């Protein structure tokens, strides 16, 4: 108990990806979160997703707000630049960073307090801008780092550790994102890596804003009996309404496909997402149908999970802004400064 080091999650260490890197090369510093925290599982899934995708770690920019969730970028991709900014304002920092250099891969990690309270406006506007990034919302229904206050995602009736029941209706990031025109919306559970990893991979590949709401139980403040964000409750109510595999451009992946309908959605970069086990009235490319279907599942008391919606062809922020292909940070100064002569002739307009 008094030893603060925790064992690293054992992974097949030796296996190398296309870049010749092992999973360890995608890890970061030792986590300082509570043992059993859902966020640590998400961290592990992120490591796995990037490793599988053969992304060069240092070509990733990882950003976060403040909270237990906000700390996690320190725990993966040690070679990447990290930015742990201020509470709730990661979307703006990511937007500016994206604007400057779209050639990197962006991953933002946020908490439910970070995203749905103080940062709600920024999240909504990042969705609206379709900033090309993977946005992972580590959703535990509480403010972990400040010791367990209800967050805006706490369900009505869910009780705090002290026993008082929340009475405020929750903000559901999935419905919110669908309403705001988000181009990639998913929900998963930190305890279900099989589901989460392909979603993360698709979210990374998606050209635009990929929101992944991950129920991530807080063992210390919100894992008790009467909580609706506990491991137990989530396991019991988590219903994968759709299964999605991410098939990178490079080639077929090893996953086996069962029978049943498989629906493929092509992504911007030529990768594909294969949807399987999709309910009849559910079409992951039709926003309103998805919305309706999820409402029905919700009314049935289920927490519907999976890659719920994607619109791969919507213009991302750079397309809307009309910026040049080449990252702005790579433009030589000479192409930016009009020079003395131009100024001189411009001055004639001010005479």
């Amino acid at each position: 108990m008094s030893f603060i080091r925790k064992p690293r999650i054992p992974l097949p260490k030796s296996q190398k990806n296309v870049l010749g890197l092992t999973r360890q090369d995608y890890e970061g510093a030792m986590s300082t979160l509570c043992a059993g925290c859902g966020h640590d599982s998400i961290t592990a899934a992120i490591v796995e997703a990037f490793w599988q995708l053969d992304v060069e770690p240092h070509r990733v920019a990882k950003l976060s707000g403040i909270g237990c969730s906000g700390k996690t970028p320190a725990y993966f991709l040690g070679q990447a630049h990290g930015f742990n900014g201020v509470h709730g304002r990661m979307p703006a920092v990511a937007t500016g960073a994206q604007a400057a250099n779209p050639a990197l891969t962006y991953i933002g990690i946020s908490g439910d307090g970070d995203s749905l309270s103080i940062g709600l406006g920024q999240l909504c506007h990042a969705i609206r801008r379709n900033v090309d990034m993977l946005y992972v919302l580590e959703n535990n229904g509480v403010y972990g780092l400040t010791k367990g206050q209800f967050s805006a995602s706490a369900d009505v009736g869910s009780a705090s550790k002290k026993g008082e029941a929340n009475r405020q209706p929750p903000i559901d990031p999935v419905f919110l994102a669908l309403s705001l025109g988000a181009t990639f919306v998913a929900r998963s559970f930190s305890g279900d890596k099989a589901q989460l990893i392909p979603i993360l991979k698709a979210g990374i590949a998606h050209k635009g804003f990929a929101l992944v709401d991950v129920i991530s139980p807080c063992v210390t403040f919100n894992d008790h009996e009467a909580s609706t964000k506990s491991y137990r409750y989530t396991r019991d109510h988590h219903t994968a309404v759709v299964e999605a595999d991410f098939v990178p451009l490079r080639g077929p992946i090893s996953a086996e496909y069962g029978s049943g309908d498989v629906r493929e959605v092509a992504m911007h970069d030529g990768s594909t997402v294969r949807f399987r086990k999709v309910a009849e009235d559910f079409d992951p490319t039709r926003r309103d149908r998805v919305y309706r279907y999820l409402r029905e599942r919700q009314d049935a008391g289920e927490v519907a999970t999976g890659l719920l919606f994607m619109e791969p062809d919507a213009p991302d922020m750079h397309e809307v802004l009309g910026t040049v292909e080449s990252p702005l940070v790579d433009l030589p100064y000479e192409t930016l400064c009009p020079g003395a002569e131009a100024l001189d002739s411009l001055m004639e307009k001010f005479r």
Partner: protein
Amino acid sequence: MSDPVNDFALKIATVNGTGSASANGLLMQSIFRMGVPVSGKNLFPSNIQGLPTWYEIRVSGAGHTSRAEAPDLMVVLNPATQTRDVAEVRAGGWVLHDSSWQLRRDAQRDDVTYLGIPFAELCTERFEGSRARVLLRNIAYLGALAALLDVEVPVLEELITQTYGRKKKLLDSNFEALRLGYDRARDAFHCPLPIRLRRMSANDDAVLIDGNTAAALGCVYAGATVAAWYPITPSTSLVDAFSAFAGQFRKDPDTGRLRVAILQAEDELAAAGMVIGAGWNGARSFTATSGPGISLMGEFIGLAYYAEIPSVFFDIQRTGPSTGMPTRTQQGDLLAVAYASHGDTRHIALFPADPHECFHFAVAAFDLAERYQTPVFVVSDLDIGMNDWVVPRLRWDDAYRPDRGKVLSAAELEAGARFARYLDIDGDGIPHRTLPGVHPRGGYFTRGSGHDSHARYTEDSVAYREVVDRIARKIDGAATAVPEPELVVDDALGAERPATVGVVTIGGCRGAVVEARERLRDHGVVADVLRIRGFPFHPSVRSFLDRYERVFVVEQNRDAQLRTLLVVECGVDPARLEPLLFYGGMPLSWGPVVKGILAALGMADPDAASQPTGAAPAPSPGSTPRLEIARGGA
């Protein structure tokens, strides 16, 4: 009164949303093109249409650009304000009014000359369409003014042609309206008036430009590629100009796409965050805002300071506090900017006095931000930013290259450069940085929480202090890198100079103070002027303060914020710095400065009842007698 040729002021009182501002701009530009020094102040309401607005034009062959004292000529076009407008004219002056309606009794004075022309009626007779009539009335009074003041009509006509040239019909009616007013004035009155223009060649190397446009141009030339902003008066036109210049200069000729990203943020917090994100990623990025935006950006500014991220903030100040008077000027954010954010912080700031400096300081701001890896503020104001000023033509040195500061390249990292993000390797307090994506060895974790010299999280006192102490040293070091103060002294006087006072001022007060200095000579007072241009203060500021027994600090806020900064930063005895404060929201004119200093020196002011001065020894901001000679229309 000196020779009124090329030395007078006029003021046009009208209603906003009627197009008069552009007409008045044409008049000002005509005077400029006649080679005569001129300045203009657009006093407009925080409103879109239908409220009183004024435009002041000062003509000064001697080249003075501060706001005029009482106008010689008032153009009365707004019945709602006629009484106060007429009351403002100097005794012996003129009132040009729209005699389509009667002046009210209380707008009648014995000591001014009334020049009535029924502009509205004339235009209604002559032109069709209510909007056209309104617009052309503006041109008609321009015509009358041309006759009265000897504005060269061809100059005006050329300008009108440049403005409406493409629309023949519009052009014709404008010419007609101009002629209408001109003829009517020439027929009815003895033209020109004693106050009148005469062609000079003072403007050969000058341009007429506003500070926000010039600052935007500076951003273009500095190589800024990311702008993030949220609209707020009076900063909006800076980003508008930047967008326009980007369209002109930053369009890829092949694809038509832009070499710039301009992000209209959802609010100022987001704008600041975007600027910081882009700066972190290696782009030159900036935002423009005003006081309320600075307040909202406070948290992010502290982050940029502590995590050491280059970023440029233009604060185009307006009258505070709170929403205040959004279309009035003030220098009320000096403290808010210098120590923005909670905790120990201190920021580099530049204070331009005119559009010329806005251009150059914008460029300097990016260099300083990257060199010192910190937020840098360009602190301008509504008067500088939104009014047109005659300034030296902007020039560019093609040899300029951005100072990107200490950024480790991929090659350096590859070669094994030792990298500790927050370590003081060079002894100047400035660490090395790396940019995301450049090299696996460059990765580090940026954070606003406690960190050590290696960018690792820490809660250890010693490791924490190592970083904040270094940052303090780093910012100290910028004192000699920011623009040096401007000194206006009479070297000719040599050692035998009479008793001299020091005057410290800042920003747009420059013109008024320099002019006041000349007038003070007439009273036997020699005033040496130092104008602050950068923060932290250059060491010469302290020497200047030490040189004079009496030092006046002239600024446009209630609480003597510049004086506070001088006391705190230079460590001088506050009793020695006498505040002269002008914070009613109007650009400063020389008169109140002269009066204030004379009164403080116990010298009678010859041409007005003297006012109490701010020269009490060691006043606190609260107890400082606040001096403000209110004049003018608002």
